[in-house]
């Protein structure tokens, strides 16, 4: 392990490759009623007024989120995957820009993406097959985030950070797409490192028609 910066507590396993993902998390064991209940609770909590981050919080939390986006924009999906906990979630609701616990309830609604760790791995392996017509040529993204605030949470050991984003997506030969909205990152420590436990991407136009959403936000 080579911590990127011990002070930031962001670490990467340099040797972690697609092969490791192929064998990682081949079962989906942790999504159940209690897990969905926690996600509905998240949707309630995200509505609250946030507090702008202190300098120390920026160094620790904002830095991790910016690094996450940087890895996605570099298409470093294997390293991106390592930023997440073992019981993680990457979630893009299909409803509204402020999905509530009813309209946004993933237990009862389909989503644009609801990736537990296994499906997150599937998505990376799928992107890496190199034979997906929807990713030939591949998408390149550029994340721009601002407005980082901390949201109070009742959950012990969790930190909730909300931010506003604009993502530009470019595939050679196609028009550049602009996606915007807000993100919620739930961070917690695992194995002595700060990781992303749950990421919610609330698109402004999630309920409208979308063109080729096969890239990661």
């Amino acid at each position, binding site marked *: 392990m080579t911590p990127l910066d011990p002070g930031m507590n962001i670490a990467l396993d340099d040797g972690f490759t697609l092969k490791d993902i192929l064998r990682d998390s081949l079962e989906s064991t942790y999504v159940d009623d209690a897990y969905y209940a926690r996600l509905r609770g998240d949707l309630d909590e995200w509505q609250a007024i946030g507090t702008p981050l202190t300098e120390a919080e920026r160094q620790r939390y904002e830095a991790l989120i910016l690094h996450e986006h940087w890895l996605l924009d570099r298409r470093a999906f294997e390293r991106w995957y390592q930023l997440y906990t073992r019981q993680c979630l990457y979630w893009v609701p299909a409803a509204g820009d402020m999905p509530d616990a009813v309209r946004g309830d993933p237990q009862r609604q389909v989503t644009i993406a*609801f990736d537990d760790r296994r499906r997150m791995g599937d998505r990376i*392996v799928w992107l890496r097959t190199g034979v997906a017509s929807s990713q*030939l040529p591949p998408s390149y993204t550029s994340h721009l985030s601002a407005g980082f605030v901390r949201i109070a949470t009742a959950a012990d050991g969790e930190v909730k950070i909300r931010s506003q984003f604009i993502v530009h997506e470019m595939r050679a030969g196609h028009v550049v797409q602009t996606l915007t909205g807000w993100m919620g990152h739930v961070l917690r420590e695992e194995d002595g490192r700060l990781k992303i436990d749950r990421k919610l991407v609330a698109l402004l136009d999630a309920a409208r028609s979308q063109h080729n959403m096969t890239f990661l936000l």
Partner: protein
Amino acid sequence: MSHPPELPLDALVQEHRVHRSLYTDEAIFADEMNRVFGGTWTFLAHESELPAPHSFVRRKLGLRPVIVSRDRDGALHVLLNRCTHRGATVCRQDEGTARRFTCPYHNWSFDSAGALVGVPIEEGYGPGFDKAALGLGKARVASYRGFIFATLNAEMPDLVTHLGPAAQLIDEWLDRWPGATLKLQRGTHRMICLGNWKLVYDNSADGYHPGFSHMSLLRMRKDRYGAGVDMQWTIGNVDHGLQTVADVGNGHTFIDQRAEIKRYWEQAAPMPGETRYEQAIRAKLGAKADTALDVVMGSGMNLNIFPNLLIIGNQIQVIEPQRVDLTHLTWYATALEAPDLPDEVNALRMRLQEDFPSFGEPDDLANFEECQAGLSIPEMEWVLTNRHLGTGKEYIGPKGMLTGPVTDDLPLRAFWREWKRLMTSTTRLAAA
């Protein structure tokens, strides 16, 4: 009617090939939006989207804005969303509940059955003014097991006659858990395709493409899970497999994969929540659990109701043409609700219904867009529809349907025959 001046429609739609202009010509597009959509029974909505009196959804019949509503007694109506005063749309919301649709322009108001019930300063029209003659235009409406269709063609036979064997196939699709009702309003995947709408319908009964077009999904599954998961039956020479295609009549088409699926649950795609919910369902249902788990997985049926409704797996896809080269494809998620079916089944169904929209359909849409790009070349005129046309492999199969091997272009030929019939029909379409 207008199409490329050099060729009449009979020359454009041949048994063994069709002309590129059918996918690229704006005049043909404008014509088919009026003659095909609305010229036959055309799918608009599902009854579960209209749960109560005065519920409505806003839809399009071709390009015509329409409202599908229930009146105060719960009866269904398809109202043309066009004020009889000066033409403005009277309903501007996608869905909701409304006793009245009040036109924002001069506030004429119409009840949920379309009758004109309010005109401001009505005396200005003089004494002979007849509100009863100025209700919203209406289409004929009928529903079969919750699927609501409309037509502007007074000569169309009743819906069940028109559906023919498709009605029985809908029964088979719905009755996998006897007594269950189907619920939409479980979220939607709304996809944009920069291609003609018929490229989507063409593909819906194309049993030739999956092993090639869906290589990304098949390879991901194999690399990660080995054999035994879903869609493995699409690999190799599928004409030697157990899948079939059929001409259901009136442009409806069908791929039947059911014979390839031995154990539905075991052959399902991976889905989040699988382990815990399988345990919960087994604990609740005991011996009946296997059947409940099977209805999590898609039906193994692709039933395509001409011209715009694709019942595939557990989802309902609706083709919504926008322009000659732009189509919206809306995938409605479905849940099954029955007193003896635990809700855990639907928690899994939601996750499984995200699988193909994530890892399958985007590759199809990308190929349709590339078809549209290729079809722009004027010097290359023809699209082939002749696979298995002369191989002698077709036979009269179940329900009296002409049936063929799964890569047969039989469904394409069935589609184009119905399309041409409607495009050359002399029946005048009219609002009621």
